[in-house]
């Protein structure tokens, strides 16, 4: 086997894992802290991508600069969606949550289709898009590297927030026992609001990066919703720390198959979901 190719596959996989982790960790926050099954999560990602695209086209903003505008915008959008709908289904059965968030997903996706049309859009003109490095025969693009670093920093920052800060402690308390948390004086509804808005913000930042890496269409969100769900479930519900490892595992396998197997690029999704399927089945057998 060609070792350089193997190393290339590994490196590309690790770099791709950052974005997966960033999007999934937001969803894990929504599921773990708030307990809401959010099938519209990927739409925040999509909205982030298209806001960055619009800022680039109309005002010439560099995507890095747009982050400063897109992140707060997504925080507000997330907060508004929480206040207008999510908070009313917190204690509803999960099927109702699924129907509600499917509805939200359809609304957001079709709004975007109405505004931007169905063609792929991308921020292609930034000078660093084509910059890459060669290290021992392995090529590393600046953009994937940058997106990996930003994602990793944000995910670790979220971990630190949950572990150290007062807000993070409040979130963990609410996740463990909402009644207990409210008994000791935590404002549960406000913590949910912040957690949900934060989850939208993280997905939105991921979206800005996908607009530079690929050429997304308004339907990109749902595919990411499904993948994020799979990663969250792979890590185990409520296990926010496991997200990083789960993302790494699926992204690296995906990338290895794409680089090593002939015609493997078409198999990416199959590999991704095959791993999830096997792990879920195997785990259920072991615990039974």
């Amino acid at each position, binding site marked *: 086997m060609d070792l350089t190719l193997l190393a290339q596959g590994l490196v590309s996989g690790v770099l791709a894992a950052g974005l997966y982790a960033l999007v999934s960790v937001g969803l894990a926050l929504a599921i773990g802290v708030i307990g809401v099954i959010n099938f519209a999560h990927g739409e925040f990602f999509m909205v982030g991508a298209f806001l960055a695209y619009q800022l680039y086209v109309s005002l010439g903003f560099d995507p890095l600069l747009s982050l400063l505008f897109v992140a707060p915008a997504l925080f507000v959008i997330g907060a508004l969606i929480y206040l207008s709908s999510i908070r009313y289904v917190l204690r509803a059965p999960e099927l109702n949550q699924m*129907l509600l968030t*499917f*509805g939200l997903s359809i*609304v957001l996706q079709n709004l975007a289709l*109405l505004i931007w049309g169905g063609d792929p859009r991308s921020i292609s003109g930034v000078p660093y898009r084509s910059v890459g490095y060669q290290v021992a025969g392995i090529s590393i693009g600046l953009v994937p590297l940058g997106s990996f670093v930003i994602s990793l920093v944000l995910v670790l920052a979220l971990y630190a927030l949950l572990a150290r800060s007062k807000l993070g402690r409040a979130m963990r308390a609410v996740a463990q026992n909402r009644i207990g948390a409210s008994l000791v004086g935590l404002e549960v509804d406000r913590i949910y609001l912040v957690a949900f808005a934060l989850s939208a913000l993280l997905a939105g930042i991921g979206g800005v990066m996908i607009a530079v890496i690929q050429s997304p269409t308004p339907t990109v969100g749902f595919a990411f919703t499904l993948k994020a769900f799979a990663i969250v479930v792979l890590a185990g519900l409520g296990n926010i720390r496991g997200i990083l490892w789960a993302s790494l595992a699926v992204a690296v396998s995906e990338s290895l198959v794409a680089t090593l197997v002939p015609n493997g690029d*078409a198999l990416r999704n199959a590999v991704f979901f095959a791993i999830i399927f096997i792990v879920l089945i195997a785990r259920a057998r072991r615990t039974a």
Partner: protein
Amino acid sequence: MRRALPDLLWTLLLAVVVALAPGALKGLFHQASVSYLSLASNAMSLAVLALSWDLLARTGQLSLAHAAFYGAGGYAAAVLAKLSGVPLFLALPLGGAVAALLALGLGSVTLRLRGIYFAIATLAFAEVLKALVQELPTGIAGGAAGLNVPPLFRPHFVPGAMQRWEIAYLRNADYFYVYGGLLLLAILVSVVVQRTRLRAAFTAVRTNEAVAAVMGVRPARAKLLAFVLSSALVGMLGALEAERLGSVIPDGTFAISTTVFALVTPIFGGLYTTLGPILGAGVLSAIEETLKRTFAEGYLIGYGLVLVASVLFMPRGLVGLANRLRRRRGPPPAGGAGTEAGLAGDGEGR
């Protein structure tokens, strides 16, 4: 089974309506009846999809694999038509059988998974199956380009005796009958489940599997039975749709939207009932068609808003809303609507 009598009478009534509808529509609307019949077939297709999903959900299994069984049925029909000259009608039972076998396999490995874990495992199964079908040698399943499927009906034009549009009418009317037949079959299966001891078994498994097992229900058996029944219906539907659309293609025949509609419709209509999914399919189809005609572009925004509003304002679906209204008017008839509403709601609260 005596309790099933009213349901069976309603089903009989529906059968009569299905039998008479094409003729009546033609008499009333002439050429426009062609598209009405096609719309009605779409609605009935959605109803079969929704009812079959609900059948499975009654055991607490929230499947995201309906697209897989639908696609398996469609591909079974396509491959059968390609390999042999057998009558195309046979594609329906074949599609159902292929889907049922797949469900038996999938169902037996996912028995221990619950809630969202089950949902994601079934979703993963569907995505892998789609990719596998796409990667099969083109000689078998046509690869990414898919396969053509010959139509089930080819009415002949008789010059002088009929007008041009009447060919389309005849074809749509024939399909309408088959969709109607499939819907009636799905309703019968659902009624049998609801009016025999199976209902108690399914409900018990959904509400609390451990307690169900203690009470003498075999959870594994109940779950697999529901899975097989549900998938057989969807597989037949997939085969029929492939013949109506004229082709199968991985991205379309295995599209995740099939799964989404399969679960959205019964929740909208009212879960764990026979009426809910059918009502949901009718109302959602009508809403979608009206929106499409009113706002050509972006009409799905309205559709999404309807779904959001439905969760907020009628958490138990159309059937739940109807029960609530009926109860507000006066006391429920003893043992009738009251128990129905109670059972429709149980187990929802996890």
